[in-house]
């Protein structure tokens, strides 16, 4: 197994951080776009680009309420996204174990 076999949607620094951050919240919780941007330290344009890629894959859901200056976008990890992150981290552990197997005593 190599890095090419890891989920390419998640396997990018910014999207990995976003997915892990959203997975910290319990299922059913949402995070506002502004708080997520604050945590990720990304520009709004950069963040929205990564969020759209995750949304297209069905890993996150974005819900916009209100309009104009009162508009609030809530972002949440979907069940599919949570499962994808679990598969990704499992594959990552497997890959790291293959690269540096434990030395026998």
């Amino acid at each position, binding site marked *: 197994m190599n890095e090419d076999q890891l989920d390419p949607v998640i396997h990018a620094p910014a999207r990995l951080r976003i997915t892990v951050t959203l997975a910290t919240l319990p299922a059913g919780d*949402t995070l506002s776009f502004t*708080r997520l941007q604050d945590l990720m330290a990304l520009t709004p344009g950069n963040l929205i680009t990564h969020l759209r890629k995750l949304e297209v894959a069905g890993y996150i859901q974005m819900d916009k309420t209100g309009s104009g200056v009162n508009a609030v976008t809530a972002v949440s990890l979907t069940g599919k996204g949570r499962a994808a992150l679990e598969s990704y981290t499992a594959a990552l552990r497997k890959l790291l174990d293959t690269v540096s197997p434990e030395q026998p005593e």
Partner: protein
Amino acid sequence: MEDKRGTDEQLDAQRASDIVQDARNRATRALVIRRPVLFAVWGVAWLAGDGAIWLSVRGQRPYAGPTPAALMTLTFILAAATVATVILVGRAASGVGGLSAARRRLLLFAYLAGFVAILVLEAAIDHAGASRGVIGVYGAAAPVLLAGVVVAASAAALLDWSVFGLGCWFLVVGAGSGFAGPVAVWGVSALAGGVALLLTAALGGRLRGL
């Protein structure tokens, strides 16, 4: 050094693993409410608040009730603990919506409604002609029973066994401390309730590394 936070740079497995760990730690620090700290705040408030009342009533023969100064102290301590709670929860919960936020609102409403109900019932007991001693026992034990029910019920919903145990302990303290009489009930409540909260905080802090 070039900031590559927003780019699709190549990632090796080790770096990806480091990012997962780092992002998880940062998100936990930022988004998860530090319950051990909250328990410690309320443990100190409980110990100091009920302790202040106990200091004001000890030695009273017959029991006459807490002095205005002790009640003021209790009110100040409760207000300070509430402010600390609002700050701690507000920091972590800022921008977080959905089920947890709704659950927190309902829990707060249940607690406040229960507290108002306790005060109304205390007035009714007084109106019915109960002695100062009976009102004293009720005033000390009823909030502990309310805290027990709210804490145990909210922990049961999340299958949080340590906090469920804490709620059940409050019920034991609330029901049992009344036998100590209207004076000692405050001291028993302060020690049994406050110390239990501080122990839960210490245990939770050790487990979470806070």
